[in-house]
């Protein structure tokens, strides 16, 4: 059965800390891995990763994929209160997306 597992389930940090969120997967016909940020309702797209070892970076956020070990990490440096959200990992396999349950990040001032 295809599955995506995220860890930790929740995280509380102080502003300025660096956090690492994990996503592991077991799917058939892997195509890509995507990270989303969900604050209120709609998940907003962060990154799409298709190749191993190539880091994607956007400001303080970065992500990398390891297709051999079947996982990805999302790093957030110098966290801010606005980073508080649920971070979702999704894997595209065939024509479906499989989502993890998300990591809830809370950044305390």
């Amino acid at each position, binding site marked *: 059965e295809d599955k995506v597992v995220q860890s930790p389930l929740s995280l509380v940090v102080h502003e300025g800390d660096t956090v690492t969120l994990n996503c592991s997967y077991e799917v058939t016909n892997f195509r890509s891995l995507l990270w989303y940020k969900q604050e209120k309702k709609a998940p907003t797209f962060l990154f*799409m990763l298709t190749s191993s070892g190539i880091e994607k970076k956007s400001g303080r956020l970065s992500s990398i994929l390891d297709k051999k070990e079947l996982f990805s990490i999302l790093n957030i440096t110098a966290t801010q209160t606005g980073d508080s959200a649920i971070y979702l990992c999704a894997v595209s396999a065939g024509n479906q997306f499989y989502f993890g349950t998300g990591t809830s990040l809370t950044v305390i001032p």
Partner: protein
Amino acid sequence: DAGVTQSPTHLIKTRGQQVTLRCSPKSGHDTVSWYQQALGQGPQFIFQYYEEEERQRGNFPDRFSGHQFPNYSSELNVNALLLGDSALYLCASSYRTSGLSYEQYFGPGTRLTVT
């Protein structure tokens, strides 16, 4: 550039009733996927529409059906509502399910409550 829009934003229905949710994709997108997100869970894939046909379906019963119109907008219909159908229903659009990797953009969702 209009993003993905969904209507209504909130809906309250009674067990056994039927509901229709609507989605308009982001400009330039032709593929619509529907997801159900229960509280504290990640989105669960319901189905995907492209060229007005259902292309892929997740593990949802036949009570869940859909439609895509020539302008790429889509509807999700749920019959014989159960309490367990209460969730946030998300629509996501993308360009072409060509079998290659593609990005999906989500709408704000419809919060359905079944009493």
